[in-house]
């Protein structure tokens, strides 16, 4: 057993070395690496497993305004396995695996103080149920910019893993899982029927109330939600609202659950609340609006079109670094965003990300290591050069990384994950590195309204018609009166 563990670790190290070797030939490859460290995982996806992690930084002496890129390489020996009681009904349509590696920046750094490297991968239900462990996939690089010269440090944080089911059904009552919870406010009671027709609620019971103003609050993480309830003759209008905790409410709608055929109550009716939200944590509130009429909650259906680690999925698993992980000291040098090219550069070859070669002494050397090799120069405008292929990897894995033209806020990232025993797997992704605006709105802003309008065209035409008619009528009357007047006038006396 011990041998198998040791062999596994050796294989992991070799794999990481191969992957790092492949990455070493790339322009965007990091100059300094830390690890591998064995992160210990806790959570439904990996109870007690470990994952090997290599963390690389582009430079230990970046210039002011120069992005410092942090790259995570995750070992291919994944501890992830979907094996929990939710599996049978929560993952029927697959799920999105989201991974975030977090590095804390202290000292001279600006912003929120963390550098997140993220990645998302979709797995269908069949793959999720296979006995093989689930690959962690690749995570994109994170980056940070120093605002002034000085010394600071990077602290390696945890690896956060979430699995967001593409569609999942949550019963009317359940134990809290991740950020999922449900609470009832008022005089709700369980009802298991039976109703006429023989249909039964999901899992045998549902919650109901007939008091006006009673609410049920279902907190979930995803991009959309439905209420599964019923329609019956003793039911009436209820209100659904969805919010993310901050005003304004994202969605509000009143549904009518009245169904006049008393002999045929309709169970498992879907009342769609909302869809297409940005992935995140929201609360669906069901509110009974009619006194004496029932509102019923059978279950909730949650959709996730994508995922990230901003909120906890029911499968939230956290892999923590070992206690002895040292801080990574960083010295920020003077230099404009024009690039370190003007400075005394002492190119340092990208170190092969092996475990031994950059332990403790490397960080404090004064031997001039303002490496520029990895970080795209030009401040916020990474060059985004295509990565050449032909890596030094013994497996001969090419790294075709075209990926289109990066926008100014994008970094072309090439992450190589070497597989063992499977052949080398190369993933190339163009990603937005730590966007400062987390959700970019679509299009423009509707910040104006029509001012108070003048007379409408209809009113103008009516007024005109009135004036014209009056004028014509007046003229006619005047003419007739004049003619009559002329007729009455006595003629010349003979």
């Amino acid at each position, binding site marked *: 057993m011990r041998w198998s563990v040791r062999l596994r670790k050796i294989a992991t190290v070799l794999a990481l070395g191969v992957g790092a070797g492949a990455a070493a030939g790339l322009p965007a490859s990091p100059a300094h690496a830390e690890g591998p460290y064995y992160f210990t995982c806790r959570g439904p996806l990996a109870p007690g497993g470990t994952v090997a992690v290599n963390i690389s930084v582009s430079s230990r002496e970046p210039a002011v305004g120069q992005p410092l890129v942090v790259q995570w390489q995750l070992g291919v020996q994944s501890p992830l396995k979907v094996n929990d009681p939710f599996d049978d009904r929560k993952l029927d349509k697959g799920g999105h695996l989201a991974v975030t590696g977090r590095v804390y920046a202290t000292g001279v750094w600006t912003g929120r103080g963390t550098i997140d490297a993220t990645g998302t991968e979709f797995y269908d239900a069949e793959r999720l149920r296979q006995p093989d462990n689930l690959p962690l996939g690749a995570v994109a690089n994170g980056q940070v910019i120093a605002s002034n010269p000085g010394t600071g440090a990077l602290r390696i944080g945890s690896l956060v893993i979430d699995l967001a089911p593409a569609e999942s059904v949550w019963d009317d009552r359940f134990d809290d899982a991740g950020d999922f919870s449900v609470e009832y406010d008022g005089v709700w009671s369980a009802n298991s029927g039976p109703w006429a027709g023989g249909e039964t609620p999901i899992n045998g019971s549902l919650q109901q109330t007939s008091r006006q103003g009673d609410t049920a609050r279902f907190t979930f993480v995803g991009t959309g939600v439905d209420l599964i309830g019923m329609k019956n003759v003793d039911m009436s209008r209820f209100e659904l609202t969805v919010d993310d905790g901050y*005003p304004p409410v994202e969605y509000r709608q009143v549904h009518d659950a009245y169904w006049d055929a008393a002999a045929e109550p309709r169970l498992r009716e879907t009342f769609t609340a909302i869809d297409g939200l940005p992935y995140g944590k929201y609360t669906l509130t069901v509110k009974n609006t009619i006194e004496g009429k029932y509102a019923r909650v059978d279950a909730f259906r949650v959709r996730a079109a994508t995922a990230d680690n901003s909120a906890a999925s029911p499968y939230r698993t956290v892999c923590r670094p070992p206690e002895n992980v040292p801080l990574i000291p960083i010295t920020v040098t003077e230099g404009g965003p024009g690039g370190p090219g003007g400075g005394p550069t002492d190119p340092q070859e990208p170190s092969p990300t092996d475990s031994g070669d950059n332990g403790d002494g490397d960080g404090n050397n004064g031997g001039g290591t303002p490496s520029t090799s990895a970080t795209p120069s030009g401040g916020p405008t990474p060059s985004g050069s295509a990565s050449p292929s032909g890596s030094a990897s013994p497996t001969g894995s090419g790294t075709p990384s075209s990926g289109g033209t990066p926008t100014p806020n994008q970094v072309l990232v090439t992450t190589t994950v070497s597989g063992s025993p499977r052949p080398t797997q190369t993933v190339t992704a163009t990603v937005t590195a*730590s966007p*400062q605006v987390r959700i970019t709105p679509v299009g423009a802003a509707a910040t104006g309204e029509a001012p108070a309008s003048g007379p409408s065209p209809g009113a103008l035409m009516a007024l005109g018609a009135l004036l014209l008619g009056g004028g014509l009528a007046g003229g006619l009357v005047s003419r007739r009166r004049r003619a009559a007047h002329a007729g009455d006038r006595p003629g010349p006396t003979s």
Partner: protein
Amino acid sequence: MTNQPDGYRPPQPSHPPAQPYRPGRVLPRAALPAVLLLACLAGIAAIMAGLLAFLTPVTTTLEAEAPQEINVVNVGGTGSYLPPTVGPGGPGVPLTQAAPTAPPPSPAASPVPPVATGRTVRPVRIAIPDLGVSAPLMRLGVKRSGEIQVPPLSRRNLAGWYRHGPVPGELGPAVILGHVNNRQGAAVFARLREIRRGQKIYVTRSDGVVAEFTVDGVEQVSKKTFPTERVYGNTTEAALRLITCGGVYDRKRHGYSDNIIVYATLSNTRAA
């Protein structure tokens, strides 16, 4: 006792001789046809005006008070020209749209480092002394369609901070929106088009910090070609974007054709 000579009669109030009422006498006889003719002509004019108003697309131009140059909309045509930088704004300077690939304007004042910002810090007020703006701030998200939310139209003196972006003073482009007007009249950012490079914007935060931003430039862009990257893209300083509406109002589409966008950079901070 009165001493009055014989034959004296006190003066009698002079009354015009009573005349029987005749309508034709109110106006001179010759004026009546002219009045009727005028009424007919006015009626015809009103009908024509009503028809014109009905048939032509009804738009409201915000530039009525401060005439501006026509905005350049076409960015794809070979003959169109869009300046490579965002303009400085100010009197006599047209608010044209910069080229789609143009970067945000360069800082007008020396930028200062961003302010340390906790997770609970929020902006609470914005002030632009040069425009007479002082308004509270609410938080805004995105609508279901993915568009940015806006403050309620009913509150004219209320602006909104986009909460999925940085807090003003934090690294990155903080975004604040305000209406240009509503049905009752001018709203909080009605005069935003008058702002110019070098003027100051003050944002008060919930942690007591007042972030002073200096305007770098201003542009008027067509909503069809909104420069998303320039507005929301990463920056190397603490930046601020103010957005409101501009151009003409199209009643059929229930919106203005353009946006006014102000770019600013953090230039100072102080305690409130």
